[in-house]
């Protein structure tokens, strides 16, 4: 019995021979960024098992141990490696849990944006006409206000409607919703631009002649060919969503201090900056910057490699 070699190469071998992997192997910055990113995601996901204490558990918090500095500064307590915040929470544990919250909101918001943006972009690009005009006008208006501004206004309204207590209880899904709704236009414009480039190609005509439905042509035929700009946008958007969440939290429109994200940790530390407790602000700040930076670096690398025609402006 002879084994026949499959005519179509498997996904894995295709990946191994791809330009993507080749350029990744040659790009030290991309490799470092990916390692740091995976490490950060891993410690954030494993926070409940890695963190020395649970910052959500009031019983473990010792108010007497508040505002202790990190280990390399005089007056520190070896139990608290990175020091403690103003409420006596171990800063390292709080940062791990906070990074988790930031990442959940970042990825959740981008998933929602992608869902909205890709659907609207496909509809606008494929159907054209009034649908296109309406959706793109809406996107233009939202973009001219800037996504952060929209997020701040929507966040303020949602908080006013639900009241502070309810908002805090459902802060994570609400923030995903707010940031997702505020930032979909980026996706929609990019997807629409690539759909416009694709829709007059012959394979689309062929599919139409064969009598496939519009929905099938949109999702099964056109969408796969617009994936590379979507990938590139997604990386940048995750970074943006994390920054937006941090900004909202910093303004007091985001995560409550009892369940802090990196942004609300920075905010709570800011009040103690004048009294010399710089670590409560600057250590979570550093984690946030590193997280966003490696995502941005990966996005830059991906854009250089995939080189999609991104929608400018």
């Amino acid at each position: 019995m002879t084994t026949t070699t499959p005519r179509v190469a498997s996904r894995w071998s295709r990946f191994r021979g791809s330009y993507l992997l080749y350029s990744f192997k040659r790009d030290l910055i991309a490799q470092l960024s990916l390692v740091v990113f995976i490490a950060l995601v891993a410690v954030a996901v494993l926070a409940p098992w890695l963190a020395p204490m649970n910052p959500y558990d009031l019983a473990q918090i010792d108010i007497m141990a508040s505002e202790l500095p990190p280990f390399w500064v005089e007056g520190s307590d070896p139990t608290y490696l990175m020091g403690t915040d103003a409420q006596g929470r171990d800063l390292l544990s709080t940062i791990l849990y906070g990074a988790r919250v930031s990442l959940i909101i970042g990825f959740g918001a981008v998933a929602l944006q992608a869902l909205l943006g890709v659907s609207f972009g496909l509809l606008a690009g494929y159907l054209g006409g009034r649908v296109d005009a309406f959706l793109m006008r809406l996107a233009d208006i939202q973009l001219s206000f800037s996504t952060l501004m929209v997020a701040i206004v929507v966040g303020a309204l949602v908080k006013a409607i639900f009241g502070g207590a309810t908002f805090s209880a459902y802060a994570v899904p609400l923030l995903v919703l707010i940031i997702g709704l505020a930032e979909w236009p980026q996706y929609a414009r990019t997807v629409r631009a690539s759909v416009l480039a694709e829709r007059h190609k012959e394979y689309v005509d062929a599919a139409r002649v064969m009598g496939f439905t519009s929905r099938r042509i949109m999702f099964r035929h056109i969408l796969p060919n617009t994936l590379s700009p979507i990938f590139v946008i997604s990386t940048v958007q995750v970074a943006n969503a994390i920054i937006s969440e941090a900004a909202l939290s910093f303004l007091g429109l985001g995560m409550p201090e009892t369940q802090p994200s990196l942004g609300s940790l920075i905010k709570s530390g800011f009040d103690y900056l004048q009294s010399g407790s710089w670590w409560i602000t600057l250590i979570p700040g550093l984690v946030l910057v590193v997280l966003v930076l490696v995502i941005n670096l990966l996005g830059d690398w991906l854009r250089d490699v995939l080189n999609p025609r991104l929608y400018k402006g």
Partner: protein
Amino acid sequence: MIAFLIKRLFHALLVMFVISIIAFAIQDNLGDPIQQMVGQSVPESEREALREQLGLNDPFLVQYLRFAGNALQLDFGYSYIFNQPTTEVILRHLPATLELVFATTLLIVLFSVPIGVYSAIRPRAWLSRFFMGVSIIGISIPVFLTAIMLIQLFAIGVSWSPFPADTGWGAWLNDLITTEGGMPAYGRGNPVPVFGTWATNFASLEGLTYLVLPAISLASIMLPLFIRLIRAEMLEVLQSEYVKFARAKGISLRRIYFVHALKNTMLPVITMGGVQIGTLVAYTILTETVFQWPGMGLMFLNAIQRSDVPLIITYLMIVGLIFVITNTLVDLIYGLVNPTVKLTGKPA
């Protein structure tokens, strides 16, 4: 051109209409004005009479038309916090924000063009790589964190010595991170009054020192965006046929770069600049909060925290108006500068 102008104006009016609907919906749904006006002890029948008298029981359309009519006369009611007409409150806070934005724009224009052009002309020089590296780090630092770090470094000062002081390199590193502090980082100081409610920070050296840290923070987020944009556009332009032709003709490189190429680079930058004004206003909210800069952004945040609905609405309407005007102007300028742009706005 006239058709384009009319179309643009119509578009602007439509956007303002949408904003006013949103603002009205907020006013309609948030906070009961009767509760704000009368105490707990007033019986329901009197409340109902007051409601009828104020026209709160009228149909939605009637109420909206009344709101829009007042809005056209810039009458948005009284602010709960300040107990003054909201437009007056906004006008009082406007100069501070405008001065901050102006100082930031100066910084952006002064630095982004030379750096962007340089890193496009010499993409492989180490200085270009350095600028690109710094700008991606700049994009990754949230504006409020830049502000906090600036406060720590230049206002509070750094006196910690985390490195071992008994070794030579440790002492050197400790010296390196130690800063004096002392820069003003809270509020505007004593701005010099010019006329009416407008007092300026540009008139005195002391006023300028108050402006330095907030303007740098605000610029720190916008500058990298513009550097990257100018570089990308310039790189594209330098590849084009007419630049090659100009070079073949023997025109001096300096003339090609700064006269021929830069002109076409700035076109997309103008459009981007218009779009970025929205981002800039959003970031003023964050910057003003950190520095307690008494501008519109800080006022808006206070209004949100204390549910001052009329003030929130006025801010939204006025900021919306600013966006719409700048976007329309940018479109018009773009149409004037680049006649090949399809003025009718028809899809290509």
